[in-house]
C-alpha cells in the first residue's frame, strides 16, 4: 500500500509546527471572507423577486448546510485513516470535528426552519431533505457521545470511527434527496451539469460566505486539535514526572 508519507503528518510535533504557522492565516481568512460575504449578502445584494428580503437567510443557511455535510465527510476520512492506517492524529481530529460539525448542522436546521415558516408556511415538514439532515444531526450527536464513552480512549476511537463510516451513507441521501423523491424543499441551485440558476449578484456573496465559513471551520478545528495535542503532551509529562518521584 502506497502511503509512505502519511506518517510524516502523524508526528504530533510536526503537526504543531505546521498548524502554528497555518492557524493565523486560517483565522484571518475565515473572518475576512465571512464578513465580506455576509455583509454583501445580508445588506447589499438585491432582494429576490418572489421571496423578497427573506431570501437573505440563504447566505447563512447554505454555507451551514455545506459545512454540515463536509464536516461529516471529514469524520469519515478520519475514520478510514484511523481504521486502516492507525493514524493517531486522525482519531483526535475526529473527536474535535464532531462538535463543530454538529453546530453547523444545528445552525442549518435552525435557519432552515426560520426560512420555511414565512415562505412555505411551516416551521418543519417531514420531507426527505429535512429528515435526512435531522438524521445527520443525530449521527453527529451519537459520534460525539461514543468517542468519549469509554475509559480506554482507543476503544472509543474505534467505535466512533465505525459509526462515522456507517453514517456516511446519509451524505448522498441528503444530496440527492431532492432529486430522488418529491420534496417540499426545492432542488439544488448549483449543479454539476448546468449553470447555477441564480443571479450573479447573489452567487458571489453566497460563494464568499461559503468559503469564509469553510476556512473558519478549518481554523476552529485546527485550534481545537492543537489544544488536544498539547493537552495530551502535558498529561504525558505529568505522568512521567509522577513516576519519577515515586
Amino acid at each position: 500500500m502506497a502511503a509512505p508519507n502519511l506518517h510524516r503528518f502523524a508526528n504530533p510535533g510536526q503537526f504543531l509546527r505546521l498548524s502554528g504557522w497555518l492557524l493565523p492565516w486560517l483565522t484571518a481568512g475565515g473572518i475576512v471572507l465571512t464578513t465580506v460575504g455576509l455583509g454583501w449578502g445580508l445588506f447589499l445584494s438585491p432582494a429576490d423577486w418572489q421571496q423578497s428580503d427573506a431570501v437573505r437567510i440563504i447566505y447563512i443557511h447554505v454555507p451551514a448546510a455545506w459545512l454540515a455535510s463536509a464536516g461529516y465527510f471529514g469524520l469519515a476520512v478520519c475514520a478510514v485513516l484511523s481504521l486502516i492506517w492507525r493514524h493517531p492524529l486522525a482519531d483526535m481530529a475526529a473527536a474535535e470535528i464532531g462538535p463543530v460539525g454538529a453546530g453547523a448542522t444545528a445552525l442549518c436546521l435552525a435557519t432552515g426552519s426560520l426560512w420555511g415558516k414565512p415562505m412555505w408556511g411551516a416551521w418543519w415538514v417531514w420531507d426527505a431533505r429535512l429528515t435526512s439532515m435531522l438524521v445527520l444531526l443525530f449521527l453527529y450527536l451519537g459520534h460525539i457521545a461514543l468517542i468519549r464513552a469509554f475509559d480506554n480512549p482507543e476503544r472509543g476511537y474505534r467505535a466512533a470511527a465505525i459509526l462515522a463510516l456507517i453514517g456516511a451513507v446519509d451524505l448522498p441521501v441528503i444530496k440527492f434527496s431532492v432529486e430522488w423523491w418529491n420534496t417540499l424543499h426545492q432542488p439544488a441551485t448549483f449543479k454539476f451539469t448546468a449553470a447555477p440558476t441564480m443571479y450573479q449578484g447573489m452567487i458571489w456573496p453566497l460563494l464568499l460566505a461559503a468559503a469564509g465559513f469553510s476556512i473558519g471551520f478549518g481554523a476552529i478545528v485546527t485550534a481545537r486539535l492543537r489544544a488536544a495535542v498539547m493537552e495530551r503532551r502535558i498529561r504525558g509529562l505529568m505522568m512521567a514526572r509522577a513516576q519519577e518521584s515515586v
Partner: protein
Amino acid sequence: MTRKPLSRKHRRLLILGACGLCLAGAVGLALSALSDNVTFFVSPSEIATKAPAPGRSFRLGGLVENGSVRKTQSDGKAGATFRITDGGAGVDVNFAGLLPDLFREGQGVVALGTMRPDGSFLASEVLAKHDETYMPKEVAEALKKNGTWNPADGKPAKPGG
C-alpha cells in the same frame, strides 16, 4: 507458487471495503423499497392512475392552474378554491384558512387533506413550494417584459447576470 500473505493494512482495507459494499447495498435496497413512503406528495396524474382510499389523508402537490383561484368566505373565514395541475391531470381543491404569501397562480403548492366523493380535494393545510431560481425583481420583470419568460410556465432558462 505461494502467494505473499496480505499485509495487515491491506487486509483491513479489504474488510472495510467489503463492509462498505454490503452496507451501501442494504441501504440502497431499503431506500428503493421505501420510496413510496419517502415521497412527500403525490401529483394529480398519480391520483388519476391510482386513486387513494377515500377518507385517507395525504399530500397533493403541483402547480396552481392559471385563472382557477377563487377567494371564498364561509362562516366569516377566508378560504379559496383552486385547481392543482401537473400539466396532465388536475384536481379541484377546497381550502378554508390563510394561504401562504407565496401562493399565486402558476406557483408550486403542496396541500394536505382528503379526497371527497365528488373527486375534489378538501385541504386542511396548504404549503407553498418555491423553485431553485433566485434573482432580483428587476431581472424577473425584464425577462417577463421581453417575453423570454412567463412565471406561470415555470422557471426561466437562465437568470440574466
